[in-house]
């Protein structure tokens, strides 16, 4: 069993949260690229395995960070992680990202809530970490 991306995409495009936020979602290959109206320039990429749903938002690449601040950044991200609800920081190659993981059977309302919070967290994290950027 895996996630029906087209169905999730459809539900996201029809949804409006209690905060008044809406989603703009489209399926690209095995992913949904979704933007939340609270952070339109920062898309979230939703994918799934047989067990879980993964939502990843790009933050920046290592090249966007001042060379002498990389260690400081990594330290800061590890310390910030527990304080950020529903999201965690990750790194793949030079790419830093913020992500959330949910079990495959998660209710749509919870998925939508998690994506909304992740969009908020992305903006907040970028604002906080902006001073370390080149």
């Amino acid at each position, binding site marked *: 069993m895996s996630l029906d991306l087209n169905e999730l995409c459809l539900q996201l495009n029809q949804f409006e949260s209690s905060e008044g936020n809406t989603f703009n979602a489209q399926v*690209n*290959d095995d*992913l949904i690229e979704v933007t939340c109206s609270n952070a339109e320039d920062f898309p979230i990429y939703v*994918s799934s395995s047989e067990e879980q749903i993964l939502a990843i938002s*790009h933050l920046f690449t290592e090249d966007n960070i001042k060379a002498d601040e990389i260690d400081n950044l990594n330290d800061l991200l590890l310390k910030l992680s527990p304080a950020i609800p529903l999201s965690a920081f990750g790194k*793949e190659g030079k790419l830093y990202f913020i992500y959330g*993981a949910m079990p495959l059977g998660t209710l749509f309302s919870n998925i939508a809530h998690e994506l909304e919070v992740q969009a908020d967290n992305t903006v907040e994290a970028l604002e906080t970490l902006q001073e370390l*950027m080149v």
Partner: protein
Amino acid sequence: MGIISDLFKAIKGGANEVGEAIVDTQAIRIYEQDIREAEDAIRKAKGSLTRLKSSEIALARKVRVIEDDIADYEQKAVSALDAANEALAIEIAERISSLEEELAPLNEELASLKRDVLGINKTIKNREKTIAKNKRELDKVKTVDLVQKTTKSISNNLAATNSTTNSVKRSLDRIKAKQQRHTDEMAAGEWLEEENSADDLDKKIKAAGLGGQSAGSSDVLARLKAKSKAK
């Protein structure tokens, strides 16, 4: 050591560029195949276990019937002895002896079946635990695979949109401006609401005949007349 340790070694070994496979997809398929085969073996073992258990139940029932017969004959033998019918008592004792001879190998067979059932049951439970553990490990590997595929798509997208530090800052500024607009609109809405409620209050006070009355034209005329007389 589990999968995390293997992944750690792979990352440390330099397989950490975006899109570079930390996870060997062939290894995932082999792992999945192993789990499927182990599950199939457990299914077959459970089939054997069911057959063994049903043999054990049938044999236990047969043993119980013979034991009940023996107990019954023993009681009858005692009664025969009590009635001083020695000949009948001997005949019954012979029957008991024959039943006991029949019972002994059945009891041995039953004990052996019970051991087999317990053994197979334990093996199945242990294998199920191992499979569950392997599935969890496999899921870790698949998650890494999924993260890699997703970040590869992000990287391709970034290359296409030429995302830079400046564009991130511009986006944040746009979001801040939007949030500010939203806050201003909310404040304007609240102001309007307060204004409307203040108007309502004034109307209510006026309707109640309270507060200062505005000067009517007759008041103005009276004032002008008084001014004219004073000249």
